[in-house]
């Protein structure tokens, strides 16, 4: 079967293919990777599936779509960071746009974010730089791949900057890159096209997603580590009462934080330290690290591990930020403020399972 695609005509920001990542390949040294903001990523897929369902388009009677049925809630999408990219549709398709608002235009007509649209062959889709937040998601029925008939690599299509040289997940997205739609969805797309929004009919937004994101400062809920529990209550409080600023060195690998007071005050004396040398000296050997861990290097400027983290780390860890807060954090920009509060692992787990239930995961 022939595969339709979108072609990148212009790109100034950063774009990559992302799904839920390859958590299962960390023992080989691969980054788990995956969509920075799972809320926006899963919402994009849900918009497409809800549109099909609302129009009673069933995928039940299609053949060869087992893979699609299993993965329809988390098909690979394009993650665009800071917008500034344009695409040309080389075949008809059904897309959804979510995440940071790129003031998307289809053939120069402004369309709403958090919406599902149809594109016809030759249509132009443009993303501008978003005014707030970072990552936007462009999803297509059945998912995108950057090579024809591409198979997932170790269970995922996610691209990781540090691993692109290995060549297992295609090329870095650039001008001329072709973003293929799954061939299996061709028939389905044709039957659904009649019933989805044409760009001119920009319509009511999908829920108010702003409720999910932080309006200003974000309080990150962390599960304390055993190291944190060994700290004195003064040290614990010092950490929990510090306002941190997101540093410009933050990226998909990690968010670096600076103490918002540190510019004013000179170097901290030993008794102003949050982590004592005695506790720090117990953490010398590298160990496996996971999503959301708060590393605490000697300079006491925390690093929060994000989706493209490495699998091992050597810094002391104060705790782990709950995942639904990490999705929110991933959309925050350098200069914005965060602080920490504690949560039990039971509560964090309940919230995550409730979150995934909304997406049938």
């Amino acid at each position, binding site marked *: 079967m022939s595969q339709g695609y979108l072609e990148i005509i212009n790109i100034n920001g950063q774009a990559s293919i992302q799904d839920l990542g390859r*958590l*299962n*390949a*960390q*023992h*080989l*040294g*691969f980054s788990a990777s995956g969509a920075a903001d799972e809320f926006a990523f899963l919402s994009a897929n849900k918009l497409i599936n809800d549109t099909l369902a609302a129009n009673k388009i069933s995928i039940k009677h299609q053949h060869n779509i087992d893979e699609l049925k299993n993965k329809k809630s988390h098909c690979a999408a394009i993650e665009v960071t800071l917008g500034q990219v344009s695409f040309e549709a080389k075949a008809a398709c059904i897309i959804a746009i979510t995440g940071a608002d790129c003031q998307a235009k289809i053939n120069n007509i402004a369309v709403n974010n958090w919406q599902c649209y149809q594109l016809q062959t030759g249509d132009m889709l443009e993303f501008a730089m978003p005014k707030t937040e970072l990552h936007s998601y462009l999803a297509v029925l059945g998912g995108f791949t950057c090579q024809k008939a591409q*198979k997932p*690599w*170790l269970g995922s299509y996610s691209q990781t900057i*540090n*691993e692109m*040289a*290995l060549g*297992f997940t295609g090329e870095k997205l650039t001008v001329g890159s072709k973003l293929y739609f799954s061939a299996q969805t061709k028939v389905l797309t044709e039957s659904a096209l009649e019933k989805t929004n044409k760009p001119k009919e920009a319509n009511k937004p999908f829920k108010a997603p702003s409720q999910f994101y932080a309006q200003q400062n974000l309080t990150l809920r962390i*599960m*304390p*580590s*055993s190291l*944190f*529990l060994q700290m*004195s*209550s*003064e040290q*614990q*409080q010092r950490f929990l009462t510090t306002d941190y600023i997101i540093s410009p060195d933050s990226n998909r690998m990690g968010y670096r934080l600076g103490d918002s007071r540190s510019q004013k005050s000179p170097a901290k004396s030993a008794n102003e330290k949050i982590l004592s040398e005695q506790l720090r000296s*117990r*953490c*010398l*050997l*590298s*160990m*496996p690290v*996971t*999503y*959301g*861990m708060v590393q605490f290097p000697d300079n006491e400027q925390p690093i929060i591990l994000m989706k493209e983290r*490495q*699998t*091992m780390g050597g810094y002391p*860890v104060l705790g*782990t930020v*709950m*995942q639904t807060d990490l999705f929110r954090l991933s959309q925050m920009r350098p200069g914005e403020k965060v602080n920490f509060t*504690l949560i*039990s*692992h*039971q509560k*964090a*787990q309940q*919230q*995550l*399972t409730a979150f*995934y239930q909304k997406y049938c*995961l």
Partner: protein
Amino acid sequence: MRKVSVNNMSSYQESDTNGAENSTQLTIEVVAENALLLSWQAKISLTQHNKIITLQAMIVQQLGELIIETVASYHCLMVYFSPQLSTSTQMIDKINSIAKNHHASLEIDKGDTPKVKSLHGDCIKIPVYYDTEQEWDLADVAKRCNMSMDDVIKQHSAETYHGYALGFTPGFCYLASLPESLHLPRKSSPRLKVPQGAIAIAEQQSAIYPIESPGGWHIIGQTPLPMYESKNGQFNTTINVGQNVQFYAITKAEFIAIQQGLQT
């Protein structure tokens, strides 16, 4: 101010017949909605590591689909599970009971004997061209360790190393232990480009860089052998966790010959 205490820990004291001195404490900590961190004493020990990877295999085998991934290192084992299928409290109970059986099934160890056989069969032999021409760190390492470059080569290639962890980049295996005379802290500023196949050392460890990447370890040579192969969507590393590794010196001509042999 109230001291925070959250019940997210479980410890299991393995009591040894040799008494408290040899006992090892396993701590299980919930570190994420989907991950538990099992940790033992913070030390590099072959006996302890063999226990960790045996327990790892038992957990994977006995808990099946509940487990998404396990990652072992020197003294830790990270266990990723599906939070939709099990709560962390249930997972801790299951792992504790496997750990108890695991401990009972193991022979009583008699301290750390460095000659303990690897659980993974043969020793892998890695050819190394210890390079003195390029501007790498062999000369600097020799100087800082107060020995000749030949002695660095001799000491580095005399040891049998053990693969303790894979990480950093795909196929990068942390090997220990380097002879004490070669221990150096990491470079104060990392190199932006370390070549593929670079043999490097830092502190108690040695490793081979599988692909060109940035790196803060001291480079003393290079191997022509690839550190991974990929076939039919599988990724196999040349060195696996739990395997033993030895290095042997080759000449520049041999390095080139092996490299060319691999290409044809």
